[in-house]
Structure formats: structure tokens, C-alpha cells
């Protein structure tokens, strides 16, 4: 039999035949390793877990068009490709137009969106009723609903006139079509559509004052008023008081404002408006500006406006650290997709702050557990040494050198460390899983690499914990301990 075999035989005999004592040591190492590997797992999983939590607070990235115009579906999907589908939790397009209730003539903001995505990017939306699931259904903001007295399943007739849409901006150029609107009497909008000839003179003008009181501002709708602008240079000279008609002062001033703030659009005139009957599927309560909007599907929005695949903004919920998000933003910029991405700093910054605090906390607890484990193992090994003073003395009397004593105790300690490490890695995963499921409501995947790491770390901890007890063991004087009864 080789010396090594005898060494292993002695160690296994010591561990197996002195089971109860060794179980205590094994347990302290095992529990330490369990908590350590569990915490390390959580430490690395926290960003993912917390990221998922933070996604509950809404979008953390916003896409808008690079110029001030609208975002088309193609450039939006190009931008999403930069991020990668795995990372995108939700991507909700929004299209905002100003529409009116046919009956009350009240204006409101109509928003086209994708309700499946809304639930991902704005999980905090509280809906009374249900999200619209079919065509011609709307989700109505609580505030609008109260104003017009809409209830669940009420049918609303809404209308959209193209000139009322938010127009794309830009410099007026010869031949351009300009669209403008301004608030007139009772804050009801008046709108104009102008075309310029190649000398920048107004070639045609359509005026919509249908929202104004008929016998006052409404009078301006006839051709006699609009005629006076035809042939005049654009922009108009300022303060031309002759254009302000008495009896329709507010409306005519609004018309002047609409003209002077009108912006270039290429298709505004091509757009045809529509009137649609929509049923209220749900009432939205957010505590925010969304309560004054009416949401409908993108298909309904297209039907209402006659425009497809145009978005004003796209809200994204993206998983990733603040740095990763910033990286996406930069890549999109570099690729020149015609899209500008902005981070919702309120969300990303607080996420980073909370994350680093949480990780610091887990790190601290890990360090404390590490020290506690070492104290615990050290104490147990100390007790083991005390208990085995006679045996150590005997071994020395039989010719064991100090080094053999060291190797034997270190061997036992590291064997316990390895065993405790395996136990800890497996139980630690369970521990992390339980914490994850109970605290973060999501499960984690087992990291195979953690097994060897935990075993090695436990062995090192066990070895370190044994150093002081071993020092004491080596100091034992065989003559003294063997003499006693």
C-alpha cells in the first residue's frame, strides 16, 4: 500500500467514523457555500431581475424622426434591429392627430397604437373594461370620457379633418403646400391650407372655420375673405390690421396666426378625412396626460386619417444597462437610420442607481457571510483539534513530522471544503431560485461554471479556516498530552 492510499484511508476513516463531528464542520462549510453561491448567483442575476422590474415602470427609450417629421414603419423596424429582438421587451408606436367629436364639436387627441405592445411598455396602465381587441374600438382616457360623458360600450362618432393634423415642419419654399392651424373663438381651432407659387406668392387658400360661431367667425369661411390673401407674398407682412374683421376679430386673428405659423407638408392636401363610429372598450386611468387621449388601433387610425405606417413616436422598453442602452443610441446615430433615439433618463438613471446599491448590498452580505463561515469553520476545526490532542500527540510520538500533521489536517479540511462546496453549489442554486421566485417573480438558469468555482472557493475557505487550528495542532507536545489520564 502506498503512503497516499494510507493517507486517504486515514482521512476517510476520520470523516466517516467521526461522523457527527464532521457533519458539523461540513454543515458550516456547506451552509456558507450555499449562501455564497446563492448570493453570487443573485448578484449576477440582479441586473436582469431588476431590469425586468424596472420595465414595469414603462419605456426607457423613445424613437422619433430625425427631422421633425413623422417616423415611418421601415425606419422604426431598422432601429429595432440595432437593438435585437431578444432585448426589446416592447415597442409601441404612437400616432397622434387632433380629431373631433361630431356631436359636440370638441377636439381631442386621437392616438393610434398597438395595444399588445402598450401592455408591455406601459404595464402600469389601469384599464376599466378591456383593451380594444377588434376594429372600431377605442380605449378612452378617463378625462375625455368624463368631459363627453362616455361610458363602457358607448358609441362615439368622431371625425378627422386632415388640416387639423399635426403637420410636418420646414421652411416655406416656392411651390410648397403649407398647413397651419391656430386657436380661434372658444379655443376651437381654425385651419388653413395654402399653396405657394414659384414666386412665393399665395396661389390658393382653403380656410376651415367650421368650428367658429356661424354668424361671427364662421362668416369668414366664404370666398370673399380668403380671396384677399391670394396673390400676396408669403409670409405676410406683420400687423396687417386690415385683415382683422370687426365682428370676427378673434377668428380672423386666428386665421392670420394659422397662416404665419403654417408649415410645409407635401401630402396634407392629399389626405382625406373621415368620420367613424367607435365603441368604448375600456376607460384608461393613468394619472397622466394619457387620460385626455383616445386610443385606437393603428388600422383604425389609418382608416381615420387615410395614412398608413406613419408614427410620431415609438416607445421602447429595452432590457439592458444604462451603458448598453447608450450604446444602442449611438449605433443608431452612426447608422443614420433617420431616427433619433432618446433615453428616458428618469427610468435609466434610477435603474442604474438602484442596481448599484443593490449589488453593493449583496456584495456586503456576501463578504459578511464569508467571514462568518470562516469563523464558524475555524471554530469547528479548533474544536476538532482540541478533541484530538491525544491523537495528534500520539501521531507525533509515532514519528509524524510537523508537516505530516499539517498535511493531514489540511487534507481533511479541504476534503470537507470540496464536499461542502458541491453541496453549497446545488443548494445555493435552490436558494437563489427561491429568492428569485419569491422576490422577483422570475426563475434563474443554473450556471454550470458556478459548481467548480464554489468548490474551489469552499476549499480555499476551508483551508484558510484550518490555518490557525493547524498551528495549534503542530504546537502540541506529545509528552504532555500522552501523560494525562
Amino acid at each position, binding site marked *: *500500500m*502506498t*503512503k497516499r*492510499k*494510507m*493517507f486517504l*484511508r*486515514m482521512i476517510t*476513516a*476520520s470523516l466517516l*467514523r*467521526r461522523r457527527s463531528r464532521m457533519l458539523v464542520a461540513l454543515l458550516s462549510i456547506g451552509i456558507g457555500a450555499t449562501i455564497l453561491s446563492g448570493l453570487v448567483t443573485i448578484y449576477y442575476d440582479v441586473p436582469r431581475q431588476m431590469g425586468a422590474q424596472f420595465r414595469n415602470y414603462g419605456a426607457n427609450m423613445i424613437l422619433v424622426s430625425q427631422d421633425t417629421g413623422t417616423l415611418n414603419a421601415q425606419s422604426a423596424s431598422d432601429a429595432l434591429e440595432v437593438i435585437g429582438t431578444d432585448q426589446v421587451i416592447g415597442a409601441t408606436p404612437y400616432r397622434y392627430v387632433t380629431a373631433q367629436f361630431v356631436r359636440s364639436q370638441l377636439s381631442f387627441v386621437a392616438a393610434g397604437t398597438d395595444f399588445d405592445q402598450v401592455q408591455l411598455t406601459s404595464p402600469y396602465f389601469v384599464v376599466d373594461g378591456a383593451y380594444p381587441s377588434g376594429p372600431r374600438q377605442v380605449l378612452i382616457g378617463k378625462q375625455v370620457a368624463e368631459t363627453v360623458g362616455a361610458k363602457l360600450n358607448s358609441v362615439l362618432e368622431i371625425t378627422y379633418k386632415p388640416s387639423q393634423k399635426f403637420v410636418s415642419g420646414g421652411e416655406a419654399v416656392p411651390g410648397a403646400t403649407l398647413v397651419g392651424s391656430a386657436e380661434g373663438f372658444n379655443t376651437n381651432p381654425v385651419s388653413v391650407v395654402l399653396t405657394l407659387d414659384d414666386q412665393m406668392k399665395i396661389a390658393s387658400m382653403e380656410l376651415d372655420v367650421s368650428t367658429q360661431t356661424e354668424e361671427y367667425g364662421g362668416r369668414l369661411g366664404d370666398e370673399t375673405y380668403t380671396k384677399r390673401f391670394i396673390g400676396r407674398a408669403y409670409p405676410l407682412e406683420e400687423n396687417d390690421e386690415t385683415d382683422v374683421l370687426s365682428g370676427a376679430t378673434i377668428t380672423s386673428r386666428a386665421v392670420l396666426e394659422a397662416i404665419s405659423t403654417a408649415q410645409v407638408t407635401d401630402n396634407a392636401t392629399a389626405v382625406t378625412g373621415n368620420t367613424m363610429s367607435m365603441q368604448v372598450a375600456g376607460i384608461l386611468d393613468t394619472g397622466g396626460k394619457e387620460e385626455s387621449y383616445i386610443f385606437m388601433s393603428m388600422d383604425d387610425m389609418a382608416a381615420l386619417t387615410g395614412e398608413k405606417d406613419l408614427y410620431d413616436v415609438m416607445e421602447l422598453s429595452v432590457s439592458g444597462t444604462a451603458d448598453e442602452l447608450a450604446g444602442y443610441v449611438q449605433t443608431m446615430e452612426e447608422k443614420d437610420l433617420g431616427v433619433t433615439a432618446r433615453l428616458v433618463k428618469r427610468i435609466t438613471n434610477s435603474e442604474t442607481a438602484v442596481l448599484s446599491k443593490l449589488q453593493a448590498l449583496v456584495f456586503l452580505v456576501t463578504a459578511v457571510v464569508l467571514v462568518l463561515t470562516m469563523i464558524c469553520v475555524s471554530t469547528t476545526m479548533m474544536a476538532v483539534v482540541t478533541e484530538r490532542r*491525544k*491523537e495528534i*500527540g*500520539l*501521531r*507525533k*510520538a*509515532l*514519528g*509524524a*513530522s*510537523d508537516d*505530516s500533521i499539517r498535511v493531514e489536517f489540511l487534507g481533511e479540511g479541504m476534503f470537507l471544503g470540496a464536499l461542502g462546496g458541491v453541496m453549497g453549489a446545488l443548494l445555493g442554486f435552490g436558494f437563489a431560485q427561491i429568492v428569485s421566485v419569491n422576490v422577483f417573480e422570475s426563475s434563474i438558469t443554473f450556471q454550470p461554471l458556478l459548481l467548480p468555482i464554489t468548490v474551489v472557493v469552499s476549499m480555499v475557505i476551508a483551508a484558510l479556516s484550518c490555518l490557525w487550528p493547524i498551528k495549534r495542532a503542530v504546537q502540541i*507536545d*506529545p*509528552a504532555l498530552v*500522552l*501523560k494525562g*489520564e
Partner: protein
Amino acid sequence: MSLLEIRNVSKIYGELKALDNVSIKVEQGEWVAIMGPSGSGKSTMMNIIGCMDKPSKGEVLLDGVDISKESSKKLTEIRRDKIGLIFQQFHMVNYLTAVENVMVSQYYHSMPDEEEALEALGRVGLRDRARHLPSQLSGGEQQRVCVARALINHPELILADEPTGNLDEANENIVLDLFAQLHKEGTTLIVVTHDPEVAEAAQRTIVLEHGRVAREIINENFGK
């Protein structure tokens, strides 16, 4: 040259002289008993001879080497190579079986050899108890295992401090017979005892009193 020569050795604990200028010679192959009242310094002397302690004064020559000047590391080596120890309280590793306890001695000395260890157990009449743990053995059996352990590496010198102190008559005789066999094979034996019968089995008895050699008795009846 004597195997062991103690020259003017004193061991002083504070005021107390456990050994006081002791000089003794033990020849190769001799069987010597040491007697004396409790506290007379017998164990102190055995520890010094057994390389587990150093004298305060004097020289201890073992095989011509002065072990009173050696480092503790060197002493461990000498003990391992030349000396077999037997104690009154047996002292076994309690989680190892009888044969494993014998093998521990081989392990530190050279190479563990289970066959040889079993043979040694056979010699002390315990071959069939080889797989028993100390707790499953009687005191006499444990002491016999310790004898087997002491002789396994063929030491030049066997030191036994009250080997029969905890044994009954029958086991005492078994152990004495084993000593007689070892003596015949040429092993030098130094046996501390309170028991005149055990002392009478030896060739010579040295009596210690108050740390000094009081007298020496040659056993005229030895071998008869």
C-alpha cells in the same frame, strides 16, 4: 559502546528537580526495568530517552549520538527510526481499526504494508481482531495492539512506561511473554513499572528516588 548512555542528566522544573544528576548505561539487547515511587522522575527520564523532551543539563547518547543537543525535527526522526513506544493508557487512534493503527506507525516510518501489520497482530494473538475499532477491544487487547505497533518497524529500543499498569494478571503475562520474545530477538527494552513481578522479568532494575538513582538490582534469576 552502550546503546544508551545517560551522563549527569538533570531535568529541572522551576524549583523542582525531576531528575537530579542521573547517570545510567543500557547495553544493546539489555532488558532493564525502572522502578521508583510516584514522582521520582521515571516518566521524565523515559520522555528524554524517547526524544520527546530534552534534559536541562547533561548528555544523552543514543547509538553514540548526543540527543540532548538535537533539534526537535531531528529528534522526531530519531524517535521514528529507532524507538518503539508503549504507554500505560495504550493510546490508539480511536477511529482507525487495530490493523490501521499498526499501519499508522509504518506510514510515518516508511511504507504502510497491511500484510506485515496483520502478521504483527498475529504475533500478539490478535489477527482475528484486526478489523475492530479500539472501542471494540478490551484493554488487554488494546495494549497488545500497541505492542504490535511498537515492534512493527523493528526498533532498536522499546520504551514502555507502565505497560501493564492497566492490565489484569492474564494480559500482564501475555505482554511480558511478548517482551521476552523481543528480548530474545535482540531488542533493547526499558520498562517502567510499579509491579515487582514485571521488574523481576527484566535482567536489571534501576530504582529512582527523588530524581536520583537510588540503587540497581541485578536479577540473578533471569532466564530461569
